[in-house]
């Protein structure tokens, strides 16, 4: 983890610890919670896309697996929530292996469609065989650990963003490890890294699993916060939205995933003033920001800062 990232992390942690004191009220906090949940999925997707060069349009599938497995087990068997969440992540990891093995042979649009197909199949399965069918089910227990139930928005906010912070640190260390360098090598040239003795296949599967586990973790947090889930929340459109978060934030940077997730989650709330025109304004803002901040928001900010530093020295 580099020095720049370390400073950013400190700022980030301070910001999230203070946020509930500034942005009081559970509405603002709930927006924050959903941003955090999305950020968690986006970090996984960012590593998958930005570092391993794999596209996925099926992240909502893993997100849904995490939510459903965890929620169903906790409702049906009454096991501790943390155990249910672990089960959700385990099932998602298994599904990731099943998807990753055939997906290894694919690239570009073909990979996109394969992952899209996976997500849609999960969606159909939830619709047909998921508890409650398309109507979904409620009365899912709140998150609890060691007998303490996390119910209020502010405590759940800390929980979610705590998870995001830990995940981000873990991911930074991963990227800067030997495996991480190998990943970037895959992104740049698969053939070359193969020749250098990097086991591309195994590494790709590992990254797929990692991103699936992040998504499943986020899904189970969602289920135990909202306490109601239905298949509609885990559709292809959510996958596309997640992709949008990563691109808007900046695909080559984990901070980008977090910033993108926050922006895309908060934006519709800000646009409520426009009532029905919000979809128009939303589309317009997305189009413009993609066109003008091509590398994504975070790389843009980094560039700006470095420019300023450079000009300051001169």
């Amino acid at each position, binding site marked *: 983890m580099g020095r720049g990232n370390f400073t950013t992390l400190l700022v980030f942690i301070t910001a999230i610890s203070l946020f509930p004191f500034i942005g009081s*009220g559970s509405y603002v906090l709930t927006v924050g919670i*959903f941003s955090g949940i999305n950020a968690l999925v986006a970090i996984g997707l960012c590593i998958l896309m930005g570092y391993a060069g794999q596209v996925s349009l099926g992240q909502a599938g893993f997100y849904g697996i995490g939510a459903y497995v965890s929620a169903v087990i906790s409702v049906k068997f009454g096991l501790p929530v943390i155990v249910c969440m672990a089960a959700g992540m385990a099932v998602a990891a298994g599904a990731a292996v099943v998807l990753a093995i055939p997906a290894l042979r694919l690239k570009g649009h073909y990979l996109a469609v394969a992952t899209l197909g996976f997500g849609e199949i999960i969606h159909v399965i939830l619709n047909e065989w998921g508890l409650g069918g398309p109507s979904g089910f*409620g009365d899912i227990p709140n998150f609890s650990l060691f007998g303490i139930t996390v119910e209020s928005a502010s405590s759940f906010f800390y929980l979610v963003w705590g998870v995001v912070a830990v995940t981000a640190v873990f991911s930074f260390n991963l990227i800067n490890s030997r495996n991480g360098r190998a990943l970037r090598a895959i992104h740049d040239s698969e053939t070359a890294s193969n020749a250098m003795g990097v086991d591309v296949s195994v590494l790709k599967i590992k990254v797929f699993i990692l991103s699936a586990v992040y998504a499943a973790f986020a899904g189970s947090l969602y289920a135990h916060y909202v306490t109601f889930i239905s298949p509609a929340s885990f559709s292809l459109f959510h996958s596309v939205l997640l992709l949008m978060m990563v691109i808007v934030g900046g695909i080559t940077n984990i901070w980008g995933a977090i910033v993108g997730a926050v922006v895309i989650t908060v934006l519709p709330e*800000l646009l409520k003033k426009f*009532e029905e025109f919000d979809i128009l304004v939303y589309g317009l803002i997305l189009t413009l920001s993609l066109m003008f901040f091509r590398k994504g928001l975070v790389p*843009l900010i980094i560039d700006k800062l470095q420019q300023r530093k450079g000009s300051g020295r001169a």
Partner: protein
Amino acid sequence: MKVFKILLAVFIVLGLSMSVANSAGKEPYKIGAIFSVTGPASFLGEPEKNTVIMLQEQINKAGGINGHPIEVIIEDSKSDETQSVLASKKLLESDKVLAIIGPSTTGESMALVPIMNTAKTPLVSCAAGAPITQPVNERHWIFKTPQYDFSVVEAIYAYMKSKGIAKVGIMTVSTGFGDSGKKALQELAPKYGITIAADERYGPKDSDMSTQLTKIKAAGAQAVINWSIGPTQVVVTKNWHALKMGMPLFQSHGWGSKKNIELAGKAAEGVIAPLGRLVVWDKLADKHPQKALLKKYSADYEAKYKSEPGTFGGHAYDSLMMVVEAIKKVGPDKAKIRNYIETKINKWPGTGGIFNMSSKDHCGLDKDALEMVVVKNGDWEILK
């Protein structure tokens, strides 16, 4: 980087505009409304939103509630549970509403149950699913105005029984709306001695349902029951007509809009559906307790929006008027509003039927709220 600055400015203006407050004479009573104005369930949210805007104008023009104007704050849930959770938090905390009406769909309403119970604020849902208000002891603050899905099914099955139909094929759209219909259809079939020969499904954007209909025909059904909203029910009707099925087609209460007859054209002839009296008010006897109210609502709505309110706009009418009446009688007190709705909404004529709320039933409608209606010569006709 001019563009960057412009966009930044846009964001700042947006942020500021959120905090603009509006002023009025006597302090307004705030009521929240969450509807699926956009997204897949916008067929529900659109007339609901229109209805509420129209009623708000009418009520305020007539002097509001005891001199207080009402302010209905409408949030678009985009047919999405996550969004409706956010909307409810915003309404409860930022707007400090006395009650919330909506959401439009069962899933979204279910997602709000724990929130409303914690916030101790009444919710009058515009969705039909039975779990919204049952079990009643866990749904202390939750009411709903649409009739239960099983009331609709009972109306269909009772009619079928009287016509000697014992074997049916059902087809439902794979959304929450179709799913709750499917569950009710399956659950009540034995009670009416009806066997379900085929149980088919389709997506909300599918373009051809001939396969499902063919399967139902091959299974030897005597009638088809279709359960959906939006364009698919018209496509089913067209396919049913083209295939010359030789058996009647029953639709759910979602069929209750003239627009559907218009879209399906002559294919709609003979389609039977159990509908609320709103769409057939002109065919009711003059002394029917709902008639005057239905007539006024339909006429006002059509004058303002150049379209029909349909059954779903009526749900919003009932929800809002119940809350308004409660505030008028007991004042701006959430607990008293809740108690008033539970105990005093009795023999209360609304658009959906005559409501009888109680501590055992937070919906207050049964199958008598519906009429079996057939399409004849491009118009509705009540079946006796």
